[in-house]
């Protein structure tokens, strides 16, 4: 294990921080930056609770070394929406009852957001595939799927787009 200094942009803020070669990006985000909205559910890339967006890609931060994030641009749940103005995906999660214990929620919201960016009009199967890397033990996924549909509808009507696909 060696110590070294890395730099990256997280939620729009530049950071320079000392880390070690045995630190995971997840540890850096939680233990050093205390951005605890990013969760550890399994540590092996199976549950998706540690999901963040790095360089525009949805990734599991438990499977990335902190050093690998050197020079990266990272968004965590704390970088989405704020108290005054929640992201439409966050709003939809509240309204449809997609939140139970809430532990999967941050990762799930990031996965949903990323999917809607790439595919603004997903059908039900595409939604299921888009969040297939995020396990939820409480909801049975149905209300989460409903939330993503609702958000997709709102985002597309806001953007003057077409309405939701039938599934």
């Amino acid at each position: 294990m060696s110590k070294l200094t890395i730099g990256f942009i997280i939620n729009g803020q530049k950071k320079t921080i000392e880390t070690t070669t045995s630190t995971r990006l997840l540890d850096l985000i939680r233990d050093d930056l205390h951005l605890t909205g990013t969760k550890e559910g399994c540590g092996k890339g199976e549950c998706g609770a540690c999901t963040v967006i790095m360089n525009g890609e949805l990734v599991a931060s438990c499977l990335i070394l902190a050093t690998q994030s050197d020079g990266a641009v990272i968004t965590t749940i704390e970088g989405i929406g704020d108290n005054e103005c929640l992201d439409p995906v966050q709003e939809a999660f509240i309204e449809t009852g997609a939140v139970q214990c809430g532990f999967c929620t941050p990762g799930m919201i990031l996965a949903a957001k990323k999917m809607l960016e790439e595919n603004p009009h997903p059908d039900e199967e595409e939604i299921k595939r888009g969040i297939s890397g995020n396990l939820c033990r409480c909801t049975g996924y149905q209300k989460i799927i409903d939330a993503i549909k609702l958000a997709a509808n709102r985002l597309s009507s806001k953007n003057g787009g077409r309405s939701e696909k039938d599934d």
Partner: protein
Amino acid sequence: MTERYVGRNVYKVDAQDKVMGKAKYPDDIYFDNMLYLKIKRATHPHAHLRRIDISKAVKLPGVVKIITADDIPQVKNFGLIIKDQPVLVGIGQKMRYMGDALAIVIAETKEIASKAVRLIEVEVEELEVISDPLRAMEKDAPLIHKDGNILATHYLEKGDIKKGFAEANVIVENEYRTTFLDQVPLQVEAGVGIYDEESGFIKLWVASQWLHDTQADVAQSLGFPKEKIRIIQPVIGGAFGKKEDISVHIHLALAAIATKRPVKLTYTREESMIAQSKRHPFIIRVKTGATKEGYLTAWQAEVIGDTGAYASSGPAVVHKGMYHCTGPYNVDNVKGVAYTVYTNNTYAGAMRGFGTTQMAFAYESQMDILAHKLGIDPAQFRLQNAYNIGSSTPNGQILTHSVGVKETIKKAAEIAGWKGGLR
């Protein structure tokens, strides 16, 4: 009267914090100057601990302290119903499953604590491992706890079972088996503890399905007055029965007392699965009789529940399963016996349904088999046997109100487009 808020889809009061990632779960709590714990666990599922050598581990830079059973002679066993679970297994004592704790490592970082755990050397004298409850029940099986491997036996008897089977035109008899399940709450066991030397208070931030019960168990184990143990509930992160038992609590308290610094312990998923409670595997032997018109006359059930190495809520789980053996159907003659059995498997406790989930697999399979044998539509067969006001449960409890079971059969069949012609 119309209600304004009851019966409405009011948004969850805690949802906004959760969607923003602001909700603080046990693992999200940090203090300055905080230490991290890791637990050295059993090296064999059934063995006497002969020697534990922490000398190499203690020398690792960054290790603050390692607690073994020798350091805490005053600490007592814990457990939800029976206090049969040791806080740490001592020399000469037995480890009874792979989750038993042998030592608490306290270090400046998680990484150092993990390294140190691997440097602890353990010598054991191996005993026969009992993984099968049927083996555990045999006369010559070695005892896992001194009072015998059958921890509890419960009985059920209503009406006259012989008469019931005599009245039956059709009898079906089967054995059903279920397996160990993990509740898999996404937040694993985790928490932070602080000891305030001046006031003698221990403060724990640990999720619990029952705060005050957990407080009482921690207090009796440590020999502290209850009011000196304060437990504060973080946002929980799922439970499904898994957070009824003690997990990190007592270890955190001991480490906080020993170091006078804030301490944190978070299980790995692997540790959570091996060390913390499971759904009981059941062996269910069941015999059911019905008349050719399709009315139940007799129901007999034998249940063997593998509760693993410690009792947890096992005795309650296994017999609650048996108490539900007939499902929501009128049966005048019922007989049952339920055994809660120790093994060297991970201990089993509460999980959604508390024994009745396993039992429903058996009784609803039996109902289906009977319906097919009798040539009656399965929904109709259930409907004609289902409870009414005035029905009696296997416990002989007379239902006086709120018995909507028939309505549920009719409605479910209706929305599913069930073509059976329910009467």
